[in-house]
């Protein structure tokens, strides 16, 4: 196992982590500010990917596709918040889970009605196609490198928004004491719609960015949703910083575990068995990580509420 391969795998882990962060940031914001468990977050990821694919095929512009993904997901999020989610804030978590699970089914079958059952086509822009040679002779996909950069820029933007703007102050206040900020004259229901739409837009952006290197199909959001939940549980529910650290941890564990665990088992098992055992353990690795973090810190790495 060469150094180049190890560095390449670390980059892969980073890239996965940063895409997970886009998903997890919205999820954790919505939970932190509104106390809502939104299972339909994966559907907004799918909405972003489908919107991007449709617009990319119509216009041929990837940038237009990204804008469409952001807009469509934010719009879908705002719509869902005002029509349905708004009635659930006072409901127990179980009702929220049921209602947002129903939303997954509605989004999935609705998408199938409109777009059909076959996967859609979405390609990476030609300017970012192919590999680039990094210092040290590492050939790495330009597009994946772009994903890392875009993700970091979005993370920085989100940090500025939360820490440096009036809206961010309101969001942080909403997490701590929603009655008090309502009493201070902040329109809490408008704030909720904005936060929900923001979270949805981030999910939609992730869907569009990842859709270009994966398959755009119905149900693509649910596997990512599970990973995003693992991320926010590790990071501490409601914490953006936690979501960032958690996402990188999960991305790196998942990627490096998949590569190195089979190698590790190959030291004392025959190759076929080592592959199977190693891969099986690698699939569990992020859950083992989650378990370990929860034993050490029951409210997650940056969890506010113990």
């Amino acid at each position, binding site marked *: 196992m060469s150094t180049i391969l190890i560095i*390449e795998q670390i980059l892969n882990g980073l890239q996965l982590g940063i895409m997970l962060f886009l998903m997890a940031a919205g999820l954790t914001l919505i939970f932190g500010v509104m106390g809502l468990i939104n299972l339909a977050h994966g559907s907004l990821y799918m909405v972003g990917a489908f919107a991007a694919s449709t617009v990319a095929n119509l216009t041929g512009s990837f940038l237009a596709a990204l804008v469409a993904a952001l807009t469509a997901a934010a719009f879908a999020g705002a719509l869902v918040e005002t029509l349905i989610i708004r009635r659930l804030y006072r409901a127990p978590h179980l009702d929220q889970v049921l209602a947002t699970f129903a939303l997954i089914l509605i989004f999935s079958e609705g998408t199938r009605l409109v777009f059909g059952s076959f996967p859609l086509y979405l390609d*990476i822009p030609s300017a970012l196609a192919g590999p680039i040679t990094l210092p040290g002779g590492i050939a790495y*996909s330009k597009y994946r490198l772009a994903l890392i950069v875009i993700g970091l820029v979005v993370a920085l933007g989100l940090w500025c928004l939360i820490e440096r703007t009036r809206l961010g102050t309101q969001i942080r206040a909403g997490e701590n004491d929603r009655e008090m900020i309502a009493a201070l004259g902040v329109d809490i229901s408008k704030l909720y719609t904005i936060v929900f739409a923001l979270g949805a837009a981030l999910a939609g952006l992730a869907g569009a960015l990842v859709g270009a290197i994966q*398959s755009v199909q119905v149900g693509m959001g649910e596997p990512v949703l599970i990973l995003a939940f693992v991320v926010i549980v590790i990071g501490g529910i409601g914490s953006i910083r936690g979501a960032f650290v958690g996402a990188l941890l999960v991305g790196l564990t998942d990627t490096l575990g998949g*590569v190195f665990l089979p190698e590790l088992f190959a030291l004392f098992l025959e*190759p076929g068995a080592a*592959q199977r055992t190693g891969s099986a353990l690698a*699939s569990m690795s992020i859950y083992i990580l989650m378990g370990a973090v929860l034993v050490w810190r029951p409210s997650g790495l940056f969890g506010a509420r113990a």
Partner: protein
Amino acid sequence: MKRLLIAAAVVAMSTTPAFAQVKVGMITTLSGGGAGLGLDVRDGFMLAIAQSGRDDIEVVIEDDQRKPDIAVQLSDKMIQSERVDVMTGIIWSNLAMAVVPAAVRQNVFYLSPNAGPSALAGKGCHANYFNVAWQNDNLHEAAGAYANSAGHKNSFILAPNYPAGIDALTGYKRFFEGDLAGEVFTKLGQTDYAAEIAQIRASDADSVFFFLPGGMGISFLKQFADSGIDLPVVGPAFSFDQGILQAVGSAALGVVNTSQWNKDIDNPTNAAFVESFEAEYGRLPSLYASQGFDTANLLISALDTASPSDADAFREALRAANFDSTRGDFAFGPNHHPVQNIYAREVIQEGDVFTNKTLGLALENHSDAYAADCMM
């Protein structure tokens, strides 16, 4: 009066066995991630029924949502309350394993249009179970045979870590004579293959074999094409069927895949099938559609000589496989699995549409590795 009517009905039923209604239960995947496959099987099957002009075949279609528990519920309902004579439709091997053994034990005939798990081909074979598609290993074995003829000596092979994935790599290795540069099991449902592609780049492989059905294959091919690694790729048809090629786009061009069917196989049945399928549904048929079509035609050919109520005669009629297959020659082996040619195909572009072109035979009159274990 009432008793008289019942008696008349009984007489009427018993005197016209050949024209009695035959009830077919189709359980297939029509929603969720794998719905494209189920839709193709259903559409191919119903096209053949419609073309036969018969009105004595009633088909009950239900959606299993790709969930074994739902498939089992549907199967119980079909057997116990709908009283179907014949069942068909299941796409996935894990669902087939949950449904088929119990169904055939209750004297229902099962005609598989897709799933062919090894357990049902060997020791677990059954007189009432017929597979019209392939045994699961077949296309992978053909990929191994093709790799030999293409002169590949050192393959990097990967598949998801679940029974069909393990069977796939076993099938490839059974026929491939070269060495393995690497053997990797990925997670089922994995969508990011950056780590595996990096391993391929670092290895000294001269070819790549992969079995990643559905969306997994789309993701892998797009990412592999983007990586700039220039190695020949071989795989079974499952990642190159008509339904998903458009989503992969130019990333799949030139990839060689193995299939028992292609739209350019030259026989009148196939030409008519491709034309009528496209006219009816407005899209090109996939191998799944051809399998659905062949399954229905097998059933119709058997119904021409016997009724399912006479199980022994009906079974013989099925075993004879006296129908015109879209694949040309078709026969059942001793374990009721196909003995057939498997072809190597190449992905090409025809106008705006990505599709496959037959390159040549990969395996001729190929059976499967489990037939000897079948005691029927």
